[in-house]
């Protein structure tokens, strides 16, 4: 990934040059600006430069709305790219934002092995302790043996007899102080309790977990007020 980050920096230098020329020509609505901003908006965060991505998105959104970006938006993107490309090899002016951290224990219940491993890695990387179960049945069967946990992060759709909602209800009955965060790939379920839609980004998951842990213990279960 480091090689890709370096290639992104080199590309950023070329994009910077092009955008500066468009600004100098007083042409922030040029097709080349749209293409460049659109591509940066979709890629910068993947390579670890989310602030460039956000600045590019501000420019791209103007084009998406059928208008042209204002000079301030374009200058903002140019400033981000300039900071990135002028940095020394060891500098990280645009490194990912300071992660939201915690030390609590999280129970992850997710039947997709890759997603479970991804969530575990994301949360451990932010300081949390993590225990995992592949479905609701396993989580309930192991509940007594698990260390005390402060948050249940569960998929709503789980194989077996115990779905995500039923699991949350049972855990809240036994441990009412536990916070619950649901996830699902189905947007229709997004209205339920604390929720993060799949696919989630790791930094977004960590931020959401911190937010839910800091919330009151009520309003955690689906259907609760």
């Amino acid at each position: 990934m480091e090689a890709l980050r370096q290639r992104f920096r080199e590309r950023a230098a070329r994009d910077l040059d092009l955008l500066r020329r468009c600004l100098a020509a007083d042409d922030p609505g040029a097709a080349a600006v749209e293409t460049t901003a659109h591509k940066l908006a979709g890629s910068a965060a993947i390579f670890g430069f989310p602030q460039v991505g956000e600045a590019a998105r501000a420019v791209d959104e103007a084009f998406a709305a059928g208008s042209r970006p204002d000079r301030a938006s374009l200058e903002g993107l140019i400033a981000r790219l300039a900071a990135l490309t002028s940095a020394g090899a060891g500098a990280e002016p645009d490194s990912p934002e300071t992660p939201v951290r915690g030390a609590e224990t999280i129970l992850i219940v997710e039947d997709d092995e890759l997603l479970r491993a991804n969530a575990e890695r994301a949360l451990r990387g932010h300081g949390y302790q993590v225990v995992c179960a592949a479905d609701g049945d396993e989580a309930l069967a192991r509940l007594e043996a698990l260390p005390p946990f402060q948050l249940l992060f569960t998929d709503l759709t789980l194989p077996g007899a115990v779905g995500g909602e039923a699991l949350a209800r049972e855990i809240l009955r036994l441990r009412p102080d536990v916070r619950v965060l649901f996830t699902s790939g189905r947007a229709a379920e997004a209205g339920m309790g604390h929720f993060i839609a799949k696919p989630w980004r790791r930094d977004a998951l960590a931020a959401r977990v911190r937010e839910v842990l800091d919330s009151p213990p009520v309003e955690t279960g689906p259907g609760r007020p």
Partner: protein
Amino acid sequence: MTRLHVLHVDDEPDIREVAAMSLDLDPSMSLTSAASGAEALGLLEAGCRPDVILLDVMMPELDGPGTLARLRQLPGHEQTPVIFMTARAQSSELSRYIALGAVGVIVKPFDPMSLAASVRDALAGAGG
């Protein structure tokens, strides 16, 4: 888990490389990459039979929607599932892509760790 052959079409080489690394995390997925809509159509005409096509929307010359329209004319690809990839997540844009015949949209920047799951989710949502 069902094996899936994915054809990924994107003009940005670094995005193709990240997608390849991402899908490689899922041993049940195999990948063919193309750098343009024209290259993708050439592969399909030559007999490439992907289970799903990941198609970048904004590409030079032949863009994603244009590629989709052309591939629907190819015998055997009238129903091949297509998932658009785009940095534009406005609901009007997403609706437009679905209306064009895509089974789903993956918004860029995507999370490399969960790209494979996003592909499967989009296919599952389409009944595949």
